[in-house]
């Protein structure tokens, strides 16, 4: 029951999802639309529980066990709760405020303000660190050990030069050559890889629908 019911549901919904593409009949289309707009939407909304719940559980466990740097977990939990309160009760449109006021005088702490001035800088800066790690890797790790690696580096150099206006200053045709590398040999190799990947995805999707692939069920026993 614990495995059989989910596998049955996957089979039924999977077949329906595939069949709905081919059948133009109005009744099938109506059911498909209701399934997408109601069932999918509401279930997807609740799926947030998994993500948020896992984060909360992880940090509560850290605090309980006084694991390393457990004090910082309070920051995560407090920020989560406060942001959710401001957003849920303060409303998302500044012109239509919710029951919670989101400004003190001219100082606003509306959810959009928090997003633009806290979340954007934090996320963008976190990712911008990659520029430094990449430069360090370029210095320490990118070696032309053999012909293939040299070919890779040569293509990369041409692209890097062709991508900036300096490339045109070095040779008028360098940007065009870089564009050609992207449009021809790169396209060929990426398409070849794409075929393999897509065949793999197709096979895995089919195996999931037919119940052959059961990794998504997770651990635990049960029939």
């Amino acid at each position, binding site marked *: 029951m614990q495995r059989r019911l989910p596998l049955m549901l996957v089979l039924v919904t999977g077949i329906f999802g595939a069949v709905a*593409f081919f059948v133009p009949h109005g009744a099938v289309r109506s059911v*498909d*639309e209701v399934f*997408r*707009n109601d069932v*999918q*939407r509401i279930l*997807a*909304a609740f799926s947030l529980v998994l993500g948020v719940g896992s984060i909360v559980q992880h940090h509560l466990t850290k605090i309980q066990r006084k694991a390393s740097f457990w004090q910082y977990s309070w920051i995560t939990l407090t920020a989560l709760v406060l942001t959710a309160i401001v957003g849920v009760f303060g409303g*998302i*449109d500044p*012109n*239509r405020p919710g029951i919670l006021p989101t400004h003190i005088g001219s100082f606003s702490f509306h959810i*959009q303000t928090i*997003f*633009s001035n806290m*979340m*954007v800088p*934090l*996320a*963008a800066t*976190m*990712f*911008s660190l990659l*520029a*430094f790690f*990449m*430069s*360090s890797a*370029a*210095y*320490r*790790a*990118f*070696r*032309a050990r053999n012909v293939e690696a040299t070919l890779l*580096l040569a293509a990369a*150099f041409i692209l*890097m*030069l062709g*991508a*900036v*206006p*300096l490339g*045109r200053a070095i040779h008028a045709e360098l*940007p065009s050559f870089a*564009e050609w590398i*992207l*449009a021809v040999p*790169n*396209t060929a190799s*990426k*398409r070849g890889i*794409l075929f393999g990947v897509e065949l793999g995805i197709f096979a895995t999707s089919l195996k999931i629908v037919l119940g052959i692939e059961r990794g998504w069920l997770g651990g635990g026993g049960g029939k």
Partner: protein
Amino acid sequence: MTPQADSARVSFWTRLQAIDRRWIYLVLAAVVIVPLLFPFKIKPKATTPVQKLFNYIDTMPREKALVISIDYTPDTRAELQPMVVALLRHAFATRRPVGVLAMAVYGLGLGEEALSQVAAEFNAHATNHEDSIINGEDYVFWGWTTPPLTVMLGMGERITNVFPVDYYGARTESLPIMRDLRNYDDMGILVTVAASAMPRSWIVYAQVQFGVHLSCGITAVSAADFYPYVNSGQFTGMLAGMKGAAEYEELVTAKMNKEGLDWGLRNRGTEAMSSQTAAHLAIMAFIIIGNIGFFATRRRK
């Protein structure tokens, strides 16, 4: 060469190989900061995929909408936001209806930022209602819903079923723009601006079933992977990274100047090209120096 000189040379390269990575960070930071403070004038020349997208939007029927899907998050804002701004400027300058949606919940705030910025730019120069950019009349921000499958397939039938209210809480059925923007048939092109594999999903779900014209603005990391779709015609052109954004900005600026809208607007993508050039040279230098050191120390062994 004497053994001592040879040993000193190898020791130099060995020390250089083992340099603290923070010195590398410092060099990179300096190389990027200086051109930002003292930029050199650059005029990016449009590549074929960028020109193709620009030409398509520029020549599509006036009543057909440009729809932009914000499929990225704040971490890739620097590369992709300039694209959205340039696309919005192009659409508003040519008086085309615009629809914006977000597939990533964190893209909502970015879409709102871009729309507010560009609408304010145009309204600052508007002298009457006709010139103004009005929410609900000239553009609609549908907002976000989930899952992506629901949106992509649902928009082919009726957009107002997928987004019964817009981002600001207004009923979409009541908006004037929605009278002529019912589904994909009323769109000239949908441009997905993404940092992930979402453009593929748009092809798979929206284009296969409904035949909608698609294009994409993509981070440079993924750009090379999407060329097969440009080659096959599944994407009508493509904007790749900040360079693609800068090229499109240049085309839009030229177009707006031609229409008498030379307002001296800021182009963040183009501004970054000086630093981009310097940084690329620095990375190439790091690779070359690293390889010289590698071969010098390897030979000794």
